[in-house]
């Protein structure tokens, strides 16, 4: 499968342990930056009640949804047990400090809305 990479900004645009939003045709995508500068992208919608994950607190490899505190794994978009569900995750890659995003969601999660 060929990826279409879209440049969305630079690493420094996102605060450490923070997130920014990319407005995309299918809906907003949240782009996260972890403490060790890992960059991850998820559909900006919690599998629980659609809370904007981009507004949550990022810690370790996960983000806490601001509405009801579900924890979502940044790499896979799956909810941390015992909660169940997932937010679609999107491939990202870095070239230097530039962040690229693919709009083709990773396999395995039906929740793309």
């Amino acid at each position, binding site marked *: 499968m060929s990826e279409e990479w*879209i440049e*969305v*900004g630079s690493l420094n*645009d*996102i*605060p*450490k*342990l*923070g997130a*920014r*939003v*990319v*407005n*995309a*045709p299918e809906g*907003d995508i949240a*782009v996260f930056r972890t*403490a060790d500068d890992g960059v991850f992208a998820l559909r900006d919608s919690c599998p629980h*009640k*659609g*809370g*904007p994950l981009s*507004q*949550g*607190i*990022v*810690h*370790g490899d996960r983000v*806490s949804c*601001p*509405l*009801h*505190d579900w*924890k979502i794994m940044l790499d896979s978009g799956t909810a941390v047990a*015992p909660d169940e569900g997932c937010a679609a995750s999107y491939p990202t890659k870095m070239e230097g400090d530039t962040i690229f995003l693919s*709009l083709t969601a990773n396999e395995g999660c039906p929740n793309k809305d």
Partner: protein
Amino acid sequence: MKERLIVIGNGMAGMRTVEEILKLDAEAYDITVFGAEPYGNYNRIMLSPVLAGDKTIDEIMINDEQWYVDNNITLYKGKTVVDIDRKERKVIIDDGSEHEYDRLLIATGSNPFIIPLPGHDLEGVIAFRDINDVDMMIDAAKGDGHAVVIGGGLLGLEAANGLMQQGMKVTVLHIVDTLMERQMDSVAGKMLRKSLEERGMEILMPASTKEIIGDGRVEKVILEDGREIDASIVVMAVGIRPNIELASKVGIHCERGIVVNDTMQTFDPRVYSVGECVQHRGETYGLVAPLFEMAKVCANHLVQHGIALYEGSVTSTKLKVTGIDLFSAGDFTGDENTEELVFQDASRGVYRKLVIEDNKVKGAVMYGDTIDGSWYFDLMRDETDITDFREKILFGQAHLGDSGHGDENRIEMMSDTTEICGCNGVSKGDIVNSININKLLTLEEVRAHTKASSSCGSCTGLVESVLAHTIGGDYSVAPHLKPLCACTEHTHDEVRNAIKNNELKSVHAAIDFLEWNTPDGCGKCRPALNYYVMCQYPDAQSDDSQSRFINERAHANIQKDATYSVIPRMWGGGTTPTELRAIADVADKYKVKTVHVTGGQRIGLYGLTKQELPEIWGDLNKAGLVSGHAYGKALRTVKTCVGKEWCRFGTQDSTQLGIDLEKMTWGSWTPHKYKMAASGCPRNCAEATIKDFGVVCVDSGYELHVGGNGGIKVRVTDLLTTVKTPEEVLEYGAAFMQIYREEAHYLERTAPWIERVGLAYVKEHVVDDEANRKALAERFHYSQSFAQDDPWEARAKGAEKHEFEPMKNINA
């Protein structure tokens, strides 16, 4: 190569320790477990319900065999460790095999004590300790015989009840004249006796057994006074002894139990021990909650985090007999230094006794209605000064203004459909099912699985009661050992002290210094740490916006559809035509969906997108309107009435007082939201007596009320003191706010804080000690000199742009 951990004993304490180790660092050890019983790990305290037929063996299994496989743990079932070679660091098994260890954990539990009476070794004389005993009892019950239970303590009565449920006729023999004398006083003991006898149990006491007779198998029990009782089975339930046989054989220091230090280490530094077999600070424990505390501490040291300490447990007890609610905790007998508060209503079957020393709860016994048990237990653990509510304390927490669940005081009587958690719509039945299906044992686990008590927390006491009731709760926690969150073992108070004493001036400095077990905390602890650091070092510019909840980061309140609200400040509830026009203009310009007057006397605009916020704030700023902090753990509003300027009843200028209070306190961050009010007369139109700090003007001056709220649990304020001048109101107001800021736990409002520390404590530090009051007020004003910047102004001018704008728009 990984270090090898060998666990001797496959019971609750040992496996809880293993679970805690796996949670902290799954790769820390190669783990091998030896268990003498031919089962996985089961919940021993649930044997009574199995005997009574309320539960099956499968239902009480905690870790089935697959669990050991999934976690790469080698389990040897039905294998007994017969020797330990401490020099060569290996254990020797009954089949002759040897296994080497780097660390050893002894969790051999306890043995039932069998009185060496003549006939104690006859067939049919058993203890009540494991699945095998329960199987024998159930078998014996098939013949409809007569059972004799020796021992009228907790275990004995549970066994007797179970055998009765199985259809046997049961006689309980107890050596003293009070049932469960270690958990209850004689009044409660009598009530319990009456209710058990009504169910058909025969109880003989004081009754001392002389011998058990029979031809190979038990037939009769003979008492010292000559009475004879037919028996097809005899259950000895007179107590347990720590199982120290193996440890003492290999020379590990033992007294009554295996002696351990506060890190659960024995006198051999490579050998740890947890559970009923240990003796810690002279105490041995036979209840489940202390075992869990020990397991946590032990695991913490085994994975070499090395920060947790076990400081002993205060325990409480409940009897697992369906339909009987009794609770006891602490020292309930008292001595010459204590007093007793007693409530007794024999016809309702309700009895409560509290033992008080120096106005602090030392112990409690309750029979019939035990819902307040967890509250008394908290008061005991927190050593709360009860002076100011001691005349009401026996009536329970409901009578202290908690209107939440006042009438729902018997878990037993509740139907399965009764809603326990109103925030998340969780019923009693949901919780009980989840506890049974998912084998939940702690409040945290119940919260994770059911969401009950995970939002506002007002039902926490009820959820704990349901948990205790369902798992048979000797449900308790060690004193002062409630960690701030799962990232640490430290309590709120320990964290605050560490920040203060070690100049920790940022969230990350605190996380590093206190050796959090996560690299950057979690959504729970980071906001707390951020607040604690800011409160301690107001001049350090430590504020970390990524450690703030979204509302405080965006200076607006996130709504359920991810839009935001904007609420400008209206000083003391006053406004002007110019301000109102500006608000109306903004509402038009941004097509605000809802304009609403809030409960705090101001106007809210709802349904705005995040991107619009800075621009709206700029427009409002032009008319002189600033942030109302309606989104923060901060000073919210000061509600006022129009006072003597207009009102014919007004005694003082409450409006100006409100404005002055708000001008003094706006912008301050607090552990939780903080609301004030000033009423011009005792008619109290501003509702000052349900605020964190409320002023009621009277002809002679000003009454100062504290610790109220109108929220989840309505709590009416306590009267702090009465003062003469507005200047004094401001000084007390600043001092009270500061002591709350400095000492309350994050997310603890003034109401629960005051209930925890006691009003007497606050009076002592704010009212009686003038120098301290002035020092508190001064620290408050110093802190305010850094806090009183309108956050909207800076952001309207372009600060923190990244917070409000998307990184990229690829819709085009």
